[in-house]
Each structure stands twice: as structure tokens, then as C-alpha cells.
């Protein structure tokens, strides 16, 4: 048991009994608790039976001695002799022992042949071997000194009780041994169970540390705590691999999407340096290159914005405001653009819509959706922006929740199911979108903003065209009129 304790490396094979293992500690605690409580319980039983029997005998002798003393005081040795004879004649239990001797140790009365040499009249309890007709028994006796050197011995033959006591003691001892065995067995079982659980966790996590991200905890399907842990860990791993995939994909995309404008700018500059014939051509080339580099800057800015929004730091800037004027501001801008593209722009908005969030950011999200709708629509199509409040099913806190349902509908080229699933990834652009300008970051930004507001972004087919829908839960206290300043809102809410 000594070698495994010294196991050094974390990856070292666990020994059969490792003192510093949690499972062994648990098993030990379990076993010790079990054995100790059994010991306590059984000694209580022992005390209640065997202890009580002995106590009864002692009590009987003490009471008897008091009666004999009072007889002695009344009528001296002769009276005591008579009483002792009487007691012996009527001792149906056949277990009483008496002996009265004078100061020379000479027998006066009783049923013992002689005064046992070792017993002094000092009121102590003694166990005395006695010889009966057929057997050798054990008696419990007590000796008393009387006036004039007389000595009195009172006792009871307790061999019947001794047998019972031995039986009880043996039974309880065996019971304890059995319980201890059970405790050892139970402890071993607990240890195995525990080791099994912990090992399966550590095996999986070790595999993952060594780079196998596809490994998952086994789920037994019993819906217990262990399954819960396994599920949580699996979910965590799923999320980690999704994030890692995202990071990988984004860095690939960055590398690719930034390279294109930079390379283009470089080619343009090089071309101009070699072939430009006059200053005007040179300037034109430089302007083009600057445009391409501006594109790079804007991609970087967009990426940074998304990252900042995803970190959740902007949530502190949330206020309560009326969404309708904010939306109308955006619409004003895009009405003109839609008109330029020969599109019809319809709005379907209520008069007031109290909303809790970041005004500028929400405007940005709606602008991105409108931008896409216009960009991917052929002329003469209709674009609709609509917003409404819907009440949802009862929530866990008992309140009937309210939901903002905002959608942008177009009649453009639309997207297939596969592309819809990936549309909000950074840099994703569908095949049909290759020849339209853009960097594939618009919907990623919308997604980040919607998530910051605890909402959901959904894409659906409009055949022809696309419906982009934003659903965001509204605060409970939207009964407060939108004109109410946010400060008061906070007071009512608290």
C-alpha cells in the first residue's frame, strides 16, 4: 500500500489503493460511520439487556441486606439466624446464598460451608465460584461487617443469567462482525461506483486535453445526477467545439477576405507604378487602392463591433424608449434608397412600442436587414417592415410574457434552407450573392445585436423572397407609457 502513494505524475496509473483518492476516502468514511453507528446501537442493546440483568441482581442483594440489618438490630445473631434459615427454606428460585460467621470465622448460619478467604467485608461486589450438587456455578456476592466481629455474606447464584448474558453478548458481537463485513462490502461498492464515475469523467476530459474534441461523456439514460453532469459536460464540449469551429472559420475568412482587397490594392498600385503615363492615371489608381483599403478598414471595424457586442459590455447602455420613432428614422433613409432601386417600401407599424435596449444598435440591426432586402431584390418588388407585440405563453415566473415581433419581408432572390442556417455566420455569402458588393458581416452583426437583447433571429422563405424576423422579449412593465422617463420606470419596477 506504500508504493502507490508515491505515484508522481498526474497521468500515472492509479494504484489499487491510493490513499489520496476521493473514492477511497468516501468508502472509508462510509465504512467507519456504519461500523461506529452499529457499535453504538449494539452496545445500547447490550446495556439495556445484560446490564439491566446485573443491575437487578445487585439491587435484590442490596434490598435483602437492608432487611437483614434491621433484623440484626432488633434481635441480634439469633434473630438473623432464624431469618436466614427461613429464607433458605422458602427460596423457590434456589439461587440465594447466605453465610453468617462470628469473629473467629466460625459458621453460625447460611448455606455456604466456609467464609471464602479472599473476600473482605468491604461492601465490594465479588464473583465467587461455588460448588453446587451437580455443577460448578458463579455467584455474585457482597460481604458486610456486623458489630462484635460478625460478618455477613449475601449472594445470588447467577449462572442462569451468566448463560443468558454470554448468549446475548455472543449474539451482539456476531451481529457487529456481520455489520462490519457489510460496511466493508458497502464501502467497497461505493468506492467502485465513485471510481467508475470519476474515471469516466477523467478519461473523457483527458482524451479531450490530448486533442480529441469529438469525445463525449457516456450518458446512461437514467436521468440521475450523474447523467445530468455528463449532459452538462457534453453541452459544454459542444459549445466549446462550436466556438472553436467559429474561431477557425472566422480566422480563415479574415485571412481570405482581407487578402482580396489588399492584393487588389497592391496590384493596382504596382500596375500604376509600371504603366501609368500621366499624373491623372496615377491618381485614379491611388484612389482605387484607397477605396480597397477603406474596405479592409470597414471589415475590421465591423468585426471589432461584433466582438464588442458579443462580449455583452454594451448592455449597461440599455434604456427604455419608444421604438417607433427610432424605426421611422431608419425608414426615412431607406425609403430613398428603395425608390432609387425601383422598389416599393411598405411599413406596418403601431403608433407606440415601448422597448428596452440600445437605440443606436437596434437601428443598425434594422438598417442591415433593409439593406439586404434592397440589395437582393430585383426592381418592382415590395419590401415590408412590420412590427407588432405578441403575448407568449405563461413564463416560468408566472407572468404572461410579451414579445416584440419585427420582420422585414422582400420578394427578391431568397435563399435555400442550407444557406439560411449559415446566413448569420461571419463572412458567409450565398453563391448567388457573389456578384453583389458586401462582406458577409451584416447578418452576423444583426445576430449579435439580437442576442444582446436576449432575442432570436429567424430566416424564412417568402417564395419568392425572404422573411427575416427578429423576436425580442419585452420588459414586464411596458404598461408604463413610453413618455415616462427611464428613471421613473426603474422606481416602479423596484
Amino acid at each position: 500500500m506504500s508504493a502507490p502513494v508515491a505515484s508522481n505524475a498526474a497521468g500515472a496509473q492509479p494504484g489499487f489503493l491510493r490513499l489520496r483518492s476521493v473514492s477511497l476516502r468516501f468508502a472509508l468514511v462510509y465504512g467507519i460511520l456504519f461500523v461506529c453507528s452499529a457499535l453504538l446501537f449494539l452496545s445500547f442493546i447490550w446495556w439495556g439487556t445484560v446490564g439491566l440483568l446485573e443491575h437487578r441482581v445487585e439491587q435484590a442483594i442490596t434490598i435483602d441486606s437492608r432487611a437483614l440489618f434491621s433484623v440484626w438490630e432488633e434481635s441480634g445473631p439469633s434473630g438473623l439466624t432464624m431469618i436466614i434459615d427461613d429464607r433458605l427454606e422458602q427460596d423457590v428460585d434456589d439461587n440465594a446464598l447466605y453465610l453468617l460467621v462470628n469473629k473467629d470465622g466460625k459458621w453460625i448460619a447460611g448455606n455456604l460451608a466456609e467464609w471464602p478467604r479472599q473476600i473482605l467485608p468491604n461492601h465490594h461486589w465479588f464473583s465467587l465460584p461455588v460448588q453446587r450438587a451437580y455443577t460448578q456455578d458463579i455467584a455474585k456476592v457482597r460481604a458486610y461487617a456486623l458489630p462484635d466481629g460478625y460478618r455477613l455474606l449475601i449472594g445470588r447464584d447467577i449462572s442462569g443469567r451468566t448463560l443468558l448474558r454470554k448468549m446475548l453478548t455472543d449474539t451482539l458481537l456476531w451481529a457487529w462482525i456481520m455489520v462490519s463485513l457489510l460496511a466493508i462490502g458497502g464501502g467497497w461498492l461505493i468506492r467502485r461506483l465513485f471510481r467508475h464515475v470519476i474515471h469516466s469523467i477523467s478519461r473523457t476530459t483527458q482524451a479531450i486535453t490530448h486533442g480529441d474534441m469529438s469525445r463525449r461523456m457516456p450518458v446512461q439514460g437514467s436521468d440521475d445526477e450523474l447523467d445530468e453532469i455528463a449532459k452538462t459536460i457534453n453541452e459544454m464540449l459542444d459549445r466549446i467545439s462550436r466556438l472553436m469551429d467559429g474561431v477557425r472559420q472566422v480566422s480563415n475568412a479574415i485571412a481570405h477576405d482581407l487578402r482580396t482587397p489588399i492584393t487588389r490594392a497592391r496590384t493596382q498600385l504596382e500596375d500604376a507604378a509600371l504603366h501609368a503615363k500621366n499624373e491623372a492615371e496615377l491618381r485614379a489608381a491611388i484612389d482605387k487602392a484607397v477605396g480597397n483599403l477603406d474596405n479592409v478598414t470597414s471589415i475590421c471595424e465591423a468585426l471589432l463591433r461584433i466582438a464588442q457586442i458579443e462580449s455583452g459590455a454594451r448592455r449597461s447602455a440599455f434604456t427604455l424608449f419608444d421604438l417607433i420613432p427610432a424605426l421611422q428614422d431608419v425608414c426615412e433613409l431607406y425609403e430613398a434608397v428603395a425608390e432609387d432601386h425601383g422598389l416599393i417600401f411598405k411599413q406596418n407599424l403601431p403608433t407606440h412600442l415601448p422597448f428596452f435596449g440600445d437605440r443606436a444598435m437596434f437601428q443598425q440591426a434594422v438598417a442591415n436587414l433593409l439593406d439586404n432586402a434592397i440589395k437582393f431584390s430585383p426592381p418592382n418588388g415590395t419590401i415590408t417592415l412590420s412590427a407588432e407585440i405578441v403575448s407568449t405563453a405563461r413564463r416560468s415566473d408566472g407572468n404572461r410574457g410579451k414579445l416584440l415581433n419585427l420582420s422585414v419581408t422582400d420578394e427578391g432572390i431568397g435563399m435555400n434552407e442550407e444557406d439560411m442556417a449559415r446566413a448569420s455566420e461571419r463572412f458567409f455569402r450565398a453563391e448567388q450573392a457573389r456578384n453583389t458588393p458586401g462582406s458577409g458581416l451584416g447578418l452576423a452583426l444583426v445576430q449579435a445585436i439580437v442576442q444582446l437583447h436576449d432575442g432570436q433571429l429567424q430566416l424564412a422563405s417568402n417564395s419568392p423572397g425572404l422573411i427575416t424576423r427578429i423576436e425580442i422579449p419585452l420588459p414586464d412593465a411596458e404598461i408604463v407609457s413610453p413618455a415616462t422617463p427611464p428613471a421613473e420606470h426603474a422606481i416602479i419596477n423596484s
Partner: protein
Amino acid sequence: MRIMPGPKPIIITSDSVAFCFRLSRVIDSYNKGTLPRKIIQLREEGTDLCRQGLVRSGLARLRRAIISLKRTPP
């Protein structure tokens, strides 16, 4: 409680035929002749058992006889 190491056990003198006869005499000393039948029977059985060597069984019967004698007023 001390356990006596003494190898020699003390003899209990009441476990003897002599004590049987003594109890029998005690019974007789209660007005002889008018003893109830039951007591006479117990006494006979007791002394018989003692004679056969079953001292403690004999004693038990004789003691029972004495106790019932003491209970019934003469």
C-alpha cells in the same frame, strides 16, 4: 466487581440430602396430621426425589410445600 482467582469453589451446603430432610422436618413441625393432601403429596415427592439423588428437584418441591403451608393459616 472482583473475580475471585481462588481455585477452590465454596460448597453450597443446602444442595444436600440432609437439607432435604431438614425441610421435610420443617413441614412435619406444622401440626402433623392435619396437613392438606396437596402438601403431603409434595413432601413425599420431594423426599423421594432427594433419596434418588435429584436433590435440587426435590428441594424445589419441598420449598413449594413450605410456602403454601405459610400461606394457609393453621
